[in-house]
């Protein structure tokens, strides 16, 4: 009966209109590409905000060439950055990079495009929800972007929006104020990630192809599964907190406003009785798992690229799977290690120090397994592989520098200094973003049918690697010298950090150099669409199911729903010959092992 109605349905929808095909599409691949392009634009935008900030830090009080005049007197009086505008740039750089850039790229784009392909499904479990997830995200992005143009500009209280600052800044009870729009934008983004994560989990649990048992699932899918659970369960508390902050700003309540507050010499008019720490708890209950939302999909991508380019099975596949599941679980009980400085008490600090040390164990297991996977491999140094390889030490530096922040004693010295900025940027920028670049170079041929230029790719890689480190390595030195973050003048007013101020110029040059080398990527991305080398369906000689589709995959993905006959990384197994060193998941034994014939 169901088939009948579907048939009937189909006759009317042979060729969907252009709008249904490219704008309001329910095809997970189109949605993935929409997510990808939108988030890349936001990443670039967030990076531009950062490049402007670095000018002010490198040359405090000097007029910004060219752009200064163009941005208007309110933001840049006489071409010099106003402190309020600097704060907007800081808050929005963090917000945009995390919530509109990296997560939508890692989960919205990669997850949407690849998960159904890798599990051998024709689409996501709920295609219409998938489409609404993208559009809700899009609206959230527009709200965030538009907040730059309301009176007094965008949010200015950091990406963490700590109360009471976030409530008393631009306090008008109008929705057209930066912080209020930030909160409304976040509600949209949280709703979008809720729809997306439910979809990814149901797709992985329910739509796995015949024979694709749990332990035959590519590690990328495991990473997406754990990530989706984190998004599903960690984001709602921030939504609750966002609603409460909206109440504080719009309805005059005092959820986050303690009694007896005096703001600019005037007693606060609200009832008081709230708790500023409550915001921090709810915020970090999301924002720490969010770190793993940023890093797990990156690990998933790196695992795929490494297995393929070492031509070896991943070392410790089941250890990787278990470690990521434990990582996901533990990430819910480490949040207050962001709050040692608040005086929440030694007992609570002791608990969170313990859990924080514990969570480093699965992280190290994952990193170790990925490094050991290289051992004895005959490595192909393709552009995706270079980015994946660089991910390992970069994420390693980011992870290891986190340990002193996880221990209250050393954290009290380092808290809110540039050391923290260096630490988490190593995790996210040369860590996650390098992995995302690896993923773009690796799956680009499947999406477009053409390979990206290796030459431009290598320029992009080496430039990015050098300049990423130019930017972030000096921050550790500055931070250990006690230089605080969020300083409008880059710390110029303080005596104790004068000897490390020179690094601000070095970091500035690094940031602009990094920007310059991204042009290689942008040019490569568009040039290869038309001019890249044409490829067959499986150009990297890979084993997972997405390489069993026509290129680019049509609506419905597979010509025939595949069966999975083996695990995901059967490269160079004993008995395989020199003509074909890989057994794809979709080939039965008698085909896979039948000698020199290549798959199409």
């Amino acid at each position, binding site marked *: *009966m*169901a088939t009948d109605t579907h048939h009937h349905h189909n006759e009317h929808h042979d060729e*969907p209109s252009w709008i249904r095909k490219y704008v309001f599409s329910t095809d997970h691949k189109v949605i993935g590409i929409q997510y990808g392009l939108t988030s890349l634009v936001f990443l670039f935008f967030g990076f531009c905000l950062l490049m402007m900030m670095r000018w002010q830090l490198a040359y405090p009080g000097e007029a910004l060439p060219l752009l200064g005049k163009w941005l208007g007197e309110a933001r840049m009086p006489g071409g010099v950055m106003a402190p309020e505008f600097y704060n907007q740039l800081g808050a929005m750089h963090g917000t945009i990079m995390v919530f509109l850039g990296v997560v939508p790229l890692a989960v919205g784009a990669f997850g949407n495009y690849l998960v159904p392909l890798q599990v051998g499904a024709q689409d996501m479990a709920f295609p219409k929800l998938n489409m609404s997830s993208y559009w809700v995200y899009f609206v959230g992005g527009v709200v965030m972007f538009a907040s730059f143009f309301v009176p007094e500009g965008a949010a200015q209280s950091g990406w963490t929006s700590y109360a009471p600052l976030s409530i008393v800044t631009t306090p008008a009870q109008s929705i057209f104020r930066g912080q209020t729009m930030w909160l409304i934008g976040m509600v949209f983004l949280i709703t979008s990630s809720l729809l997306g994560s439910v979809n990814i989990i149901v797709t992985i649990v329910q*739509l796995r192809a015949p024979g694709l048992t749990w332990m035959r699932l590519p590690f990328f899918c495991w990473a997406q599964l754990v990530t989706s659970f984190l998004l*599903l369960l960690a984001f709602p508390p921030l*939504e609750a907190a966002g609603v409460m902050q909206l109440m504080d700003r719009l309805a005059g309540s005092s*959820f986050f406003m303690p009694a007896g507050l005096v703001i600019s010499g005037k007693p606060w008019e609200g009832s008081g009785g709230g708790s500023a720490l409550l915001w921090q708890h709810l915020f970090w209950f999301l924002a720490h798992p969010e770190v793993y939302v940023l890093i797990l999909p990156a690990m998933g991508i790196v695992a795929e690229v490494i297995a393929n380019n070492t031509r070896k099975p991943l070392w410790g596949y089941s250890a990787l799977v278990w470690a990521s599941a434990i990582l996901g679980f533990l990430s819910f009980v480490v949040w207050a290690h962001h709050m040692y400085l608040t005086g929440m008490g030694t007992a609570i600090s002791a608990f969170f120090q313990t859990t924080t040390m514990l969570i480093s164990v699965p992280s190290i297991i994952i990193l170790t397994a990925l490094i050991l996977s290289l051992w004895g491999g005959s490595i192909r140094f393709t552009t995706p592989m270079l980015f994946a390889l660089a991910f390992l030490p970069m994420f390693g530096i980011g992870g290891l520098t986190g340990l002193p922040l996880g221990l209250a004693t050393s954290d009290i010295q380092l808290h809110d200094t540039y050391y923290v900025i260096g630490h988490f940027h190593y995790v996210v920028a040369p860590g996650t973003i390098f992995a995302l670049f690896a993923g773009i170079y690796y799956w680009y041929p499947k999406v477009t049918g053409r390979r990206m230029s290796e030459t431009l790719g290598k320029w992009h890689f080496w430039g990015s690697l050098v300049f990423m480190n130019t930017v972030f390595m000096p921050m550790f030195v500055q931070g250990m010298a006690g230089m605080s973050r969020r300083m409008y003048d880059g710390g110029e007013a303080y005596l104790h950090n004068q000897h490390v101020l020179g690094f601000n110029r070095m970091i500035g040059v690094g940031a602009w150099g990094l920007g310059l080398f991204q042009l290689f990527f942008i040019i490569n991305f568009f040039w290869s669409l038309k001019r890249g080398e044409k490829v067959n369906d499986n150009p990297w000689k890979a084993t997972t199911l997405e390489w069993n589709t026509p290129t680019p995959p049509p*609506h*419905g993905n597979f010509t025939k729903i595949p069966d999975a006959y083996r695990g995901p990384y059967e490269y160079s197994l004993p008995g395989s010959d020199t003509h074909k060193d890989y057994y794809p998941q979709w080939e039965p034994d008698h085909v896979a092992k039948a000698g020199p014939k290549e798959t199409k």
Partner: protein
Amino acid sequence: MSAHIEIPYNMDERPDTGLYNAKLGVWLFLASEVMLFGALFSSYVLLRTGASTWEAGHLILNWKLAMVNTFVLIGSSVTMVMSWAALKMNNLAKFKLYMGLTVLCGIAFLVIKGIEYAAKFEHGLLPNQSTFMAIYFTMTGLHGLHVIGGMIVNGYLLGPGSKMWATEPQRFTNRIEVAGLYWHFVDLVWIFLFPTLYLLPGK
């Protein structure tokens, strides 16, 4: 010609998981809802323990009306189950009767809630008066939005959505089950809200 796409298990259970897609989906959604309201209840605990004074709900809120509302909502959960059971017994007329009652109960709940809110506004008991009033309005307001959301879904399933019964009865019955799971959750939240806000003594 676009390919013919059929998502598997959007109606029947997948043998190894024992679930159809929407059922797993709604359980995951409810898990996130538990975290949403869990965060609000945790906030209540943290704010209350940190406060020097706290109003007694039964002195400033109308606990009698809220008690009536509790029974209205529990009643609507019962009729919701009955409507699903009616479909299981192939009785569309009975389904419509019970689903109609469910929607009516939802309306009754909101009307009573509206009377309560109006009285609070009249007496100037607004969110800016105290943390208690703030959390009262936030939690009951958010719960009210969930009731409205559920009524929109239920109303759709009672009206235009019920056409699916003629073509895909199994799928339609699943939809009622999924909507029911959500509706029971909304009911459950209220069962926690009622004693927390209306009955607990002050300090």
